[in-house]
């Protein structure tokens, strides 16, 4: 779930065309092409219904995401009503806990969902705190902005940001 936000409104991202295209497709797409902030890949989809990522879970990985284009809410079984994710929101997904990424407004209005585009890092579960710290420092330094910590941070991740 969301740990902090960066004000990246004035930052221009050079998002690869295929990543933009894939944000209107039903499957989650990953692309390692031309990432920024040291991310492993771009992730794009128009949304994801509740699901588990067994492969990442078995590898002992946690997933860190930073939204670049989003009108979505991220939710998981321990936080079922979710948290809003906007451009610059950094959030953590536990692949072994059912999770979803849904554009709630389009869901209730029965419109087409808007696309989601993010940057993704896969980190070892037992190195999560150090990795998140390093990702935050890297974004702060490259984007020249300070992380804004969420007040209602998920209790599971309270110790991760100071």
């Amino acid at each position, binding site marked *: 779930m969301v740990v902090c936000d960066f004000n990246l409104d004035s930052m221009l991202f050079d998002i690869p065309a295929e990543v933009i295209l894939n944000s*209107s497709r*039903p499957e989650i797409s990953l692309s390692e092409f031309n990432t920024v902030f040291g991310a492993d890949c771009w992730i794009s989809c128009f*949304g994801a219904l*509740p699901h*588990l990522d067994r492969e990442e879970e078995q590898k002992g990985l946690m997933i860190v995401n930073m939204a670049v284009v989003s009108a979505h809410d991220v939710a998981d*079984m321990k936080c*079922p*009503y979710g948290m809003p994710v906007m451009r610059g929101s950094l959030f953590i997904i536990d692949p072994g806990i059912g999770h979803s990424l849904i554009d709630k407004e389009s869901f209730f209005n*029965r419109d087409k969902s808007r696309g989601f585009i993010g940057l993704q890092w896969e980190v070892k579960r037992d190195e999560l705190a150090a990795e998140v710290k390093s990702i935050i420092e890297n974004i702060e330094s490259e984007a020249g902005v300070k992380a804004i910590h969420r007040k209602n941070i998920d209790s599971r991740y309270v110790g991760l940001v100071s």
Partner: protein
Amino acid sequence: MIIGDFWLPYVQIPKAVHSKAEFCEVYLHKQDVPFTADTWMSCAGALPHIDRSESDEDLLIATLCVKGSHFFGDEQMVNGRLIEPGTLFIVDPGAVHWMFDNKAFHKQERPGRFISVQWEIYRKNFNLGLFGVIKQLESISGQDIHWRCHDVRYPTHDEYVNFKKAGK
């Protein structure tokens, strides 16, 4: 989760229930409910949620689908199961659960209507309450239930068969 499937006779759906099923919010309707069920329920889908008041009352909800082709999932069965007319399934209101028309979601189309009737059963009397519902539905449909339950939280087919035998 899923208990099993029945062949269902034609059921008259009240207009309000039908029209409210267009929206992605759960609508309950307590009039003209068939099969001695407690209420009609309709929606086009439901985001993950908990039903706190039913959970506080220690209720489980037996739900019989009358219209729809939706996936129902809960925290113990994240990938969900397809629910179609005649499917009887259990909702634990205290467990995170949801309902989506997955096919429409993936095609970015408007979700179809989901309409069901439901029975509220106290958890402490759950097996007996559920077996009563199944027995009634078997009698209405004229056929035995096609049992599909493989969920450790809920009774087995053998337990139901024993219940029926004991009743004779």
